[in-house]
């Protein structure tokens, strides 16, 4: 049964040094507040898993939290490069970053296999690309019924999933809608989970197209209003596109980045107060 706790407690309990952590949210509901709490708590040697690393992993990588990145697209959407990610790969700053890269279809299927309790997933993908040559863990597999050769990708089984949702009820049932992405699969594939929410309500009224994660399938729920900013929570906030554009200049320079992180992350406290 999900425990409803303050964000600081949820991160302290669920995210440990050396863990494999999947923070998901496909261009929507990105768990920024939770990620920044991981930075404040000084977690190290993380293997970060995420389809679209985005600004959220630029911050974690630039602050030296990550040892390894498993991903499929690492850019600032619509703007350009993730400069901290690039600096780590190209120059080893602040620490070398190992990468394992896949395609979106491959990553999505890896999560789905993890959520399904299967060791691998099958798809048509990667054929003819250089991805398998350079570390993407994929292998050919022959269909036992037709003889067709397809591609197998291994399941993702992270230690912990971290996601943001619109709301939860007091029993920890979580409801999210809009672009629902890969969060359900990430939570179900992981051993532990932290879900931050805009609000905790008495009753979850039905929403068209919503994903509901039953409280018994969720680890920790923490209230973090605005916790997806500069991403957004459909129905609660708009994507802060200006910030995504501004991040380019903030992140381009190592000192400017560290200054920004000190002022906006390290010297601040997690949103949500006592959590309930």
């Amino acid at each position, binding site marked *: 049964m999900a425990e409803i706790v303050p964000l600081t407690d949820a991160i302290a309990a669920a995210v440990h040094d050396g863990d494999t952590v999947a923070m998901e949210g*496909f261009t929507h509901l990105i768990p920024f507040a939770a990620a920044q709490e991981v930075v404040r708590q000084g977690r190290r040697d993380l293997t970060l898993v995420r389809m679209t690393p985005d600004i959220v992993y630029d911050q974690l990588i630039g602050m030296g939290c990550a040892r390894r990145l498993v*991903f499929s*697209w690492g850019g600032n*959407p619509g703007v350009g490069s993730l400069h901290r990610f690039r600096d780590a790969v*190209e120059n080893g700053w602040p620490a070398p970053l190992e990468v394992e890269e896949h*395609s*979106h279809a491959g990553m999505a299927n890896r999560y789905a296999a993890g959520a399904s309790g299967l060791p691998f997933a099958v*798809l048509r993908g990667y054929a003819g690309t250089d991805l398998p040559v350079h570390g993407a863990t994929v292998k050919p597999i022959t269909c036992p019924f037709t003889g067709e050769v397809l591609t197998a990708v291994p399941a993702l089984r992270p230690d912990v999933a971290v996601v943001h949702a619109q709301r939860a009820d007091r029993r920890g049932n979580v409801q999210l809608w809009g*672009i629902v992405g*890969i969060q359900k699969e990430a939570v179900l594939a992981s051993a532990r989970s932290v879900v931050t929410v805009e609000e905790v309500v008495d009753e979850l009224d039905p929403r068209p197209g919503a994903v509901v994660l039953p409280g018994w399938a969720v680890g920790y729920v923490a209230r973090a209003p605005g916790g997806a900013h500069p991403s957004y929570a459909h129905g609660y906030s708009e994507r802060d596109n200006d910030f995504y554009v501004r991040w380019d200049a903030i992140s381009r320079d190592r000192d400017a980045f560290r200054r920004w992180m000190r002022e906006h992350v390290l010297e601040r406290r997690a949103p949500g107060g006592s959590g309930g």
Partner: protein
Amino acid sequence: MTGGTPARPGGHSAAEMMAVAAARQLRDGMTCFVGIGLPSTAANLARATHAPALVLVYESGTIGSRPDRLPLSIGDGILADTADAVVSVPEVFNYWLQPGRIDVGFLGAAQVDRFANLNTTVIGPDYRHPRVRLPGAGGAPEIAASCREVIVVARHSRRTFVERVDFVTSVGFGSGPGDRERLGLGGAGPRTVITDLGVLEPDPRTCELVLTSLHPGVTLEQARAATGWPLAAARGGARRTEPPTAAELAALRRLERTRGVT
């Protein structure tokens, strides 16, 4: 040089000509898997002009989005608000893209080679120590494999149009005729490459990209100078691209003013 937006005869920039030429490739009623940036601009321009029933599918899982402004990202809320259906990421790739339901995939790239293979991963010969680390594959490899056909948009320069890509992120025609069939790729592959200088298409016999059209004011020599392999003109010679109409330009400029506005 092709960067920036130099004024062209007729009062449009090279970038505008590229967006308009790309939009014209889309036919009304098609289903189109759209990447962000130029592909999204061109697809929305097509919707605003000659193809109002174009079905836009974004990899964020929004199917049939009808934004009235240009999204900054593939996840802007307006894409979900205006969609016929919003599905999960595994669903958009497994149920909608993989079986070949999508007519056309619209892709950009940092490098395009003579067989229309695309690189969005790394620049430089050493993957572990890249000269430039690019964002990576995203949905592109399976879009290039599974859409019935593919349209590529890229600015024309020797940096981009190379003899051989440093990394094959997405397969065009591999190393030539027969490779797509041998690899079991479901779609027909790149049909057209739109640049800010002209239009390239694969030669039906060799699969090599050849120049089929030059935009207004551009010479064959300019296109060759901006290409990293000996660029041939299509048999019968390159056509001349029709300049943007007043309606196309007005629609494009209106869209550009709305980019990323929430």
